[in-house]
């Protein structure tokens, strides 16, 4: 699948921007604050209904305008149109897919798989456990709507249960044991399904990361990953039984602290290089390589699972790679599908211009010009 056209109205710094993309490589060159990242933001937005920077709609809206429109044309065996409109005075977003209003974000998520590589990806290996959970959640959600439903449901259970725990803490007089038991059982049911799906995903994903290390990164090093769930449970455990045992054992503690202390909302992944923990012993270069490898593995994994080739978005990451590696990655991307790559400066990568079927754009003050 490729993104053929992108149209923006009053989105970020763009007043009115229209772009036709090459099915292979697209380079967007511009200085900071000129509006190149918002193009990546817009494509990611169309594919996922999410702003990856977590920006509110009012920030996405060009100053003083009544609303914004983001429109994308995706090409597969068929052509699909996606519009996202924001109306400021009603403070609401409208999604339209192929002329029909879509009410559930889940009806768009996964239809157009996308992989995004940004400088913020340092959080994948160097950030908090929540950053790694966000990564696996976003990958699995793109091919499994069941998983997406499960994590949304699990989040709701956590919210109600947190409130309930605090209520019990503050009113020890009123017995709410039956209620807490019920929410605990619901949490075990939904949470165990989340853990099983994460485990299954990571088992398969592991070999994709290993392959990327050899084929693309051409590294001698060998990567590894271990899923950490339910306070260090063995992979072959009976998940529901273990979850039940752990959560009931910590009940007093949970009430005392008013917090959900056991479950997949505390999961983590332990990455390693040559058998050593990346987090404890990895060099800056090893971290960077691992982060890029995770994104490439995500690309190939989604391609296999969904049967569609994802669009690859690389926002301002070439600056962190040496020219040799950037060139190698570009040539590789060209073979596998469509990529949209932003950079501040072309001088180090002038040779990229010579690649077949690649297209070059410059962005300045929200105006895009084919170069």
């Amino acid at each position: 699948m490729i993104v053929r056209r992108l149209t923006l109205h009053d989105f970020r710094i763009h007043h009115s921007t229209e772009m036709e993309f090459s099915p292979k490589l697209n380079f967007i060159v511009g200085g900071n604050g000129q509006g190149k990242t918002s193009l990546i933001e817009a494509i990611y937005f169309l594919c996922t209904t999410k702003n990856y920077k977590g920006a509110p709609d009012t920030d996405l809206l060009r100053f003083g305008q009544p609303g914004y429109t983001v429109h994308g044309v995706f090409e597969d065996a068929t052509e699909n149109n996606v519009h996202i409109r924001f109306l400021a005075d009603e403070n609401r977003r409208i999604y339209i897919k192929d002329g029909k209003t879509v009410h559930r974000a889940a009806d768009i998520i996964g239809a157009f798989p996308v992989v995004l590589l940004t400088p913020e990806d340092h959080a994948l290996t160097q950030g908090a456990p929540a950053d790694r959970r966000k990564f696996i959640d976003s990958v699995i959600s793109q091919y499994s709507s069941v998983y997406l439903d499960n994590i949304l449901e699990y989040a709701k259970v956590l919210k109600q249960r947190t409130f309930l725990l605090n209520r019990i803490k503050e009113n020890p007089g009123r017995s709410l044991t039956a209620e807490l038991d019920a929410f605990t059982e619901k949490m075990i049911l939904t949470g165990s399904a989340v853990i099983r799906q994460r485990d299954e995903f990571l088992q398969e994903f592991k070999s994709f990361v290993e392959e990327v290390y050899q084929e693309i990164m051409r590294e001698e090093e060998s990567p590894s990953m271990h899923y950490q769930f339910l306070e260090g449970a063995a992979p072959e455990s009976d998940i529901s039984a273990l979850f039940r045992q752990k959560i009931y054992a910590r009940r007093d503690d949970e009430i005392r602290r008013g917090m959900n202390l056991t479950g997949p909302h505390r999961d983590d992944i332990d990455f390693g290089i040559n058998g050593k923990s990346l987090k404890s012993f990895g060099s800056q270069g090893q971290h960077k390589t691992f982060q890029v490898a995770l994104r490439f593995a995500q690309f190939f994994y989604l391609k296999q699972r969904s049967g569609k080739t994802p669009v690859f978005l690389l926002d301002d990451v070439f600056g962190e790679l040496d020219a040799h590696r950037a060139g190698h990655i570009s040539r590789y991307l060209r073979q596998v599908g469509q990529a949209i790559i932003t950079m501040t400066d072309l001088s180090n990568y002038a040779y990229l211009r010579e690649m077949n079927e690649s297209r070059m754009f410059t962005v300045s003050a929200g105006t895009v010009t084919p170069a």
Partner: protein
Amino acid sequence: MIEEFSKFPGIGKKSAQRLAMYLFRSKDQDFQKFVDAVVALKRDLHSCQICYNITEKAICSICGSEKRDKSVICVVEEASDILHIERANEFRGVYHVLGGVLMPLKGIYKEELRIQELLERVKTGNVLEVILALNPDTEGDTTSLMLMKELERFPLKVTRLARGIPIGGDLEFSDDATIGRAMAGRITVK
């Protein structure tokens, strides 16, 4: 008036303004009809003494009917759910309106629901089966889990509606055929 309309489910500020404006502009006799209907709603309607369905009499037409099987109780969240299940024409038992589902965030716990009343019915009557037909969402599922536990000590069958009602879907938005299939293919959980 606009403020009062805004409290209605699914009515936003704009719709509330339109409704108020419509009433303001309506003919005197139409307006009076509306006022009478509103007054009658509270005066004539109340909850059935057995199942808490909405009725004009002390006991609703379902509980009062000899044709309905009193040994099968279908538990629903709200009285409006009864209408949806009745439309499907599949169920011949009686109902029990719980009056909501567990929602700690909104202050709804076990005591706020008609669970004790359900247990009383189960204790005294010759109930053979309880069907849990709560909406298949987070709170509905959790409430079903609690009811399953509460009903554990009684010698009866407990079933839940079969899947088919989409996850996150409501009885209210499911078509008759879907509700019918879910009812026919219900799953025994105890």
